[in-house]
């Protein structure tokens, strides 16, 4: 149920009931907020871009094996 709530897939009645509880509980507000932030933080922190020399070495690697 917690998982459904956090993902926003909980049915409307349960969601409203939990919303009421969560909004009155600072710990819950912080919990939900940090839970939802976590994927965004990880996405930004791991968005590696391809170094140019690697693209070039990939091209050579593949050309040599055709």
């Amino acid at each position, binding site marked *: 149920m917690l*998982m459904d709530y*956090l*993902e926003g897939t909980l049915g409307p009645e349960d969601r409203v009931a939990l919303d009421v509880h969560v909004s009155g509980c600072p*710990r*819950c507000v*912080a*919990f939900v*907020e*940090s*839970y939802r*932030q*976590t*994927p965004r*933080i*990880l*996405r*930004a*922190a*791991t*968005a*590696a*871009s*391809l170094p140019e020399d*690697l*693209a070039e*070495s*990939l*091209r050579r*690697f*593949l050309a040599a*094996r*055709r």
Partner: protein
Amino acid sequence: MAAPAGGEGDEALAARAAAGEVLAFEELVSRYQARVYRLACRLTDDEGDAKDVLQEAFLAAYRGLPAFRASSRFSTWLYRIATNAALMQRRARARRPTESLEAFLPRFDEDGVHAAEPADLGAASRADELLDRKLLAEKARAGLERLPGIYRDAFVLRDLEELETAEVAELLGIDAAAVRQRVHRARLMLRGYLGELVGVKP
């Protein structure tokens, strides 16, 4: 992985590449190399491994092209190849013993109320926000590396690569409920691990 807008479709290019047109294959490589590399970095622990995965994935794609059927999207097909290459690369590495991130799962007392959050993780100075951000990014990457493999795979594909749950389920050979469960646990562990950097109070 959505196909880039404009130009010839991936599947048409793949058909021409399968028929031996080198330029068509090179176009597919140039469309997808950055995304495959980013995925490889997220699923493996060092740049050398990510480079190997990048090469192996495109080589396997090249060799597998004649068997590619346009009934599935090229991007999904390539993602499967790249994910498999990354998982094989990781398995080939001797697992470094790491402290489990499970210690960072949230705790609830008998009444379902939050118990104290997991141990303090070393308070970061809040004085310098830039430093905080850098620290946060480093800590996020370290957390991902320490995540047990099954949680990491589901989390990377679903939350970082933003594939649909059903697609992740197919790629990992598990059902959708298991994907959601693993992603959820991964978020909880990472959230706890990031600690007060994301506002988790010790």
